């Protein structure tokens, strides 16, 4: 197992280095000079001195190789420089908005697992009945529905429902309060976005649970368990579901990284000041240092999620680490 862990962890390094190189190259592909864009957008004149100063500030007067090494060294120290828009350190900007995004991501995962595994298993056990059809339609719908539209519709329903019941419309709060300070206010803010993002996540995982479950139910050991007279509930819970969950674990881990993409749009709908919204603002403001840091951060989260999934998988399924 240790050899596998070391091998797998070492594989992360080239991927991250490659991603850093790609982000670095992409940033240099910006048509024209980043500094001209920056000074132009803040209404300054194109004074050669100001541009030279900006180049020095961004380290662009150094050779490209040195610039790249500086960039990588910055990533290692989690220091991404300062935001071109606000002037604050990028890490501070991200750090301030991380809790809200992280909370929604975790809540969405909980929602997704709570919906996906029981429904997916039920759908497989009741294959080709009306229950199966309903669950499958629910799943297909989840994959086709854009999360931002679902968010808008959810808000619409909440608005109309509250104004019909209480007489005045209610909107979820947009300011972040830590859950330990005011759990009700915190959850009333985070729950709707979490369900919105979680639906797609649940849909994908539900389909996976169903197909994995159907596959496992045809295995010989399930037939043996049935033949020896084991009760159905035990067969499903202990023998089938446990083995069917392997691919589902993988999927949940990989989809967690996709949540970041979902958050980018959903935070916009609910007006939440999270990392996803920061990303959109960074792109809109042409804040290249911030955009580059956020892309790099996303890739790092993605790669780490994949690593955790692979290690978990190897731990759950010995065939992988010895294969």
């Amino acid at each position, binding site marked *: 197992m240790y050899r596998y862990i070391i091998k797998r962890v070492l594989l992360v390094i080239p991927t991250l280095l490659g991603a850093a190189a790609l982000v670095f190259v992409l940033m240099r592909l910006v048509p024209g000079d980043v500094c001209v864009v920056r000074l132009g957008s803040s209404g300054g004149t194109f004074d050669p001195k100001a541009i030279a100063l900006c180049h020095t500030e961004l380290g662009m007067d150094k050779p490209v190789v040195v610039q790249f090494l500086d960039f990588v060294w910055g990533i290692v120290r989690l220091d991404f420089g300062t935001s071109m828009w606000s002037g604050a350190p990028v890490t501070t900007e991200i750090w301030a908005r991380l809790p809200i995004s992280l909370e929604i991501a975790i809540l969405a995962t909980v929602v997704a697992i709570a919906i996906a595994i029981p429904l997916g298993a039920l759908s497989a056990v009741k294959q080709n009945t009306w229950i199966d059809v309903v669950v499958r339609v629910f799943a297909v719908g989840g994959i086709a529905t854009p999360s*931002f539209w679902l968010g*808008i519709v959810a808000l*619409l329903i909440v608005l109309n429902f509250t104004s019909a019941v209480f007489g005045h419309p209610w909107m979820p709060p947009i300011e972040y309060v830590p859950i330990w300070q005011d759990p009700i206010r915190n959850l009333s803010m985070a729950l709707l976005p979490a369900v919105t993002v979680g639906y797609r996540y649940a849909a994908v995982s539900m389909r996976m649970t169903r197909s994995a479950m159907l596959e496992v139910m045809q295995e010989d050991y399930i037939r043996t368990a049935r033949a020896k007279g084991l009760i159905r509930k035990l067969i499903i819970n202990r023998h089938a579901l446990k083995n069917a969950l392997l691919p589902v674990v993988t999927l949940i881990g990989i989809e967690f990284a996709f949540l970041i*993409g979902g958050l980018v749009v959903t935070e916009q709908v609910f007006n939440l000041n999270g990392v996803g919204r920061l990303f959109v603002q960074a792109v809109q403001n042409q804040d290249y240092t911030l955009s580059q840091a956020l892309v790099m951060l996303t*890739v790092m989260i993605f790669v780490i999620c994949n690593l955790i999934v692979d290690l978990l998988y190897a731990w759950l399924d010995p065939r992988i680490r010895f294969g």
Partner: protein
Amino acid sequence: MVTAVHTTELSRARLDDVAPGRASSIRRLLGFCRRELLGTFGLLLMLIMAATGLTAEWIAPYSPTANDFAAMMEPPSWAHPLGTDQFGRDLLSRIVFGARTAMIVGLTSALVGGVIGLVLGVGSAYFGGKTDLILQRVSDVLMAFPLIIMALAVVAIFGTGVENVIIAITIPLVPRCARVVRASALAIREVPYVDAARALGFGHARIILCHMVPNVMAPFLIMVTAFVGQAVLAEASLSYLGLGVQEPVPAWGLMLQGGAEEYAATAPWIALFPGIAIVLAVLGVNLFGDALRDTLDPKLRKR
């Protein structure tokens, strides 16, 4: 070993279902429709979307960009079947023209991304060795970027607009297709007819294009269909964020961006109809894609 068995099953399935055989193409299509009811429904939705996009000028009752300040935020009526938006533009006309935008972006990104992925995937499997290793590492890196994040990064650099959105969505699709196609192509490379072709002195291009590519068509078609749905969703998301297609081009995501939330309580139709259009389009593509996969790849039939 497993992949080899898998491939034979694939080719057998293709002989029955797709390759020109005894049955005429119409009979094969009818067979598909009989077996795959949901898939047929999806195909129908796709055809409706394509027809709407192609004939938008004739179907749309109004110009998608014409403002009518006398009819702002009007609820659905005979004059405006889906109502009007905050600028008095007819929603039905904008949705009809939006189908064209979605189709252009969806099909172009999926096809271009798919074909580049196909060539790279088959090439990678065929040449093997260092070429394969390098291409695989590059695709590892590219796959580490979630689709929408990669698209945002590309938009951040090149700017917004239809062409840039297409580029932004195409780039992340390439490695995803290459990865899947390579896996199938690796199995085909071991089949004796590829060696036979090489022994006959055929060039690399001929072997790849005439002998390997046709045999990885099944996974390729499945991928490309899935890509169309993903691309339509990605375009809608980017446009919703204001980073995709720009006004006045009618696009579904863009229609949701403007006033959809602001007027949600007073004019819910502005928020509802463009979203329904997106859901139906993606649903159609996905249902058809699922059916196609069941038909072309019997191993996955249950999924």
